[in-house]
């Protein structure tokens, strides 16, 4: 057998390594299942299909916010404005739809997510402001925008189509879960099969190299923050659909969990490593934990401590791979 054939053969063998890499994802799903089993053992009713649906429904909102957060973190950034994007989206949705109808509200809301996301991206890409600070400041500004727009009290209720998205079902599965599934497939394909995904990883790994290889870093970064803004307002809209109304502070409980979900999902906070499949499980894990603490009727103190400990434990579980370097 000649040398070149041998070489090509070994080059083909790459699937073995893919499986190995996927093991990281496997691990997180094992953790998720394990925790779910624990919750079920403590409270047998949690084994019901109803509860699983509830769990997925509740997780879907965080899961959708975590899509944007995952993309941003993969580029080596961080989006601290997701909570206020979500707020803004929710508030615009109800208030504008009362005044101008649902369609216009939808358009306004989605463009607001894209525009403010783009501003984040421009600050990070062109002004070289560190993502933490850029999005922190943007979050601050959005908070004010929301307050000023609503005088602190959003008016209006969810339009009918939103109520359907938030509470209706299709084939026995809630619409919100369907949307989540579709978006998840979309983002997983985006990351693994498209040039956009490839470029995004290359920026997260080394922006310099990426740029010198002809990647338009800035465009990609802006696009990523736009997507993050979009997904956050989308989550806001779905929450509105679910609750039927909006209020300021709706997104506050999503900020840190969105980061935690991504990290629990095995994506490196430094960028360049990871993907959405992990974050998805991360989001579910967070709500499984909440359901466990509810069973125990744990007070805030206990809940906070458990929440922190679980993040640390998950980190330790990953440490082997993460520290390979």
């Amino acid at each position, binding site marked *: 057998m000649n040398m070149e054939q041998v070489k090509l053969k070994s080059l083909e063998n790459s699937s073995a390594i893919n499986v190995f890499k996927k093991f990281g994802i496997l691990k997180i799903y094992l953790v998720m299942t394990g925790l779910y089993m624990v919750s079920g053992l403590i409270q047998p009713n949690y084994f019901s299909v109803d509860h699983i649906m509830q769990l997925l429904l509740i997780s879907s909102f965080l899961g959708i916010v975590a899509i944007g957060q995952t993309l941003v973190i993969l580029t080596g950034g961080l989006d601290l404005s997701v909570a206020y994007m979500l707020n803004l989206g929710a508030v615009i949705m109800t208030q504008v739809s009362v005044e101008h109808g649902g369609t216009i509200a939808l358009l306004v809301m989605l463009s607001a997510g894209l525009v403010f996301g783009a501003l984040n991206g421009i*600050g990070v890409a062109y002004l070289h402001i*560190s993502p933490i600070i850029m999005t*922190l400041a943007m*979050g601050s500004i959005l908070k004010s925008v929301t307050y*000023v727009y609503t005088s602190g009290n959003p008016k209006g209720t969810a339009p009918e189509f939103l109520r359907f998205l938030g509470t209706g079902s299709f084939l026995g599965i809630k619409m919100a879960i369907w949307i989540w599934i579709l978006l998840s497939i979309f983002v997983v394909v985006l990351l693994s099969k498209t040039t956009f995904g490839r470029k995004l990883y290359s920026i997260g790994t080394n922006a310099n190299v990426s740029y010198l290889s002809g990647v338009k870093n800035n465009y990609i970064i802006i696009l990523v923050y736009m997507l993050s803004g979009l997904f956050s307002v989308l989550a806001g809209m779905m929450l509105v659909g679910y609750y039927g109304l909006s209020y300021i502070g709706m997104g506050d409980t999503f900020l840190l969990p969105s980061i*935690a979900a991504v990290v629990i999902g095995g994506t*490196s906070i430094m960028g360049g490593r990871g993907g959405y499949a992990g974050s998805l499980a991360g989001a579910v894990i967070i709500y499984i934990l909440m359901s466990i603490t509810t069973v125990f009727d744990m007070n805030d103190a206990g809940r906070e401590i458990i*929440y922190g400990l679980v993040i640390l434990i998950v*980190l330790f579980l990953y440490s082997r791979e993460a520290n390979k370097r």
Partner: protein
Amino acid sequence: MNRFRDFLESVFYRRNKEAILAYVILLAILVLYSLNQNDFFSRYGSQSIFNQVITLVVASLAQTLVVLTRGIDLSIGAMIGLTNSIAATIMEPISNMVTNQWLGIIITIFIVLAVGCIAGLLNGLIIVFGRFQPIIVTLATASIFGGIALYIRPTPGGSVPYVYSEVLTGRILTFIPVSAVVLGIFIFLVWFPLRRSKLGQSIYAIGGNEYSAFVSGIKINRTKLWAYTLAGLFSACGGLLLTAQTASGDPLGSNLFTLNSIAAVVLGGTTLAGGRGGFVGAVAGASILSLVLGLLIFWGIPSFYQNAVQGLILLLALSIGVLPQLGRKLKFLKVNGKGETP
């Protein structure tokens, strides 16, 4: 003239030149204060100003140390809340137990500082020996510290001896605000010596290039442990100052110190990439963030705008440095464009 040039070439200037913009903004704010704050020139005016800034300034020192090592501490607010809750819970009982108020206060201070050190050390240990990213570790420990604070003080409250509040928020020699003295201590007796110590140098070296620091014989782990421990210690100092300002404890009321301290540090010219900047800038950054909202009150602007004002100031300050470069191409290659022609 020569002196000026010497100054421009001095290590102090080089280290702190990123902070200049922050001081310009601060100066502008103070001028506006002098025009709008009715009692600016009275004793109460300066006391009010120093009291407003001091806690965030101290929290920013904690954040500065960590950021310089290219880390970030998201648990600073929680540590302030924890130490604040402990102080407000134990200060009176201890004072009663030792039957001497001053002794009780001093014992409490030591306990609280020790708690801060332990919390910080814990951060450091997990980050250093687990080799995890600081941002996620401190996010987790913030939750834990917050939980512990809630156990200690399930509700805001508690109390401290009157003198404790009175002294730390009052004046000495009738016109020097104690907060100003505290600020001076933190700048001149804590920061400057620290900067000139081996530890300070190590912190900068690690932030600049960790591998280089390692092969130069810097003890990376030990330095990081120190940085996080000191961050805990200074957060505890922040907690004690907050206790004096509020005469009570609040387990969760301090969370904003985390993000504000990061904003203050960055506003003061310290980059999150580590190795560059320092506390001198953070003092200005923290003061800006604390004082600018006062202007809204003086001008009667609705408070709905206050977050936007803070955010915009932050963005403007950070953009100004970059704007001149926008026209030019950014240098990407390592051989920095500085061809020195012999």
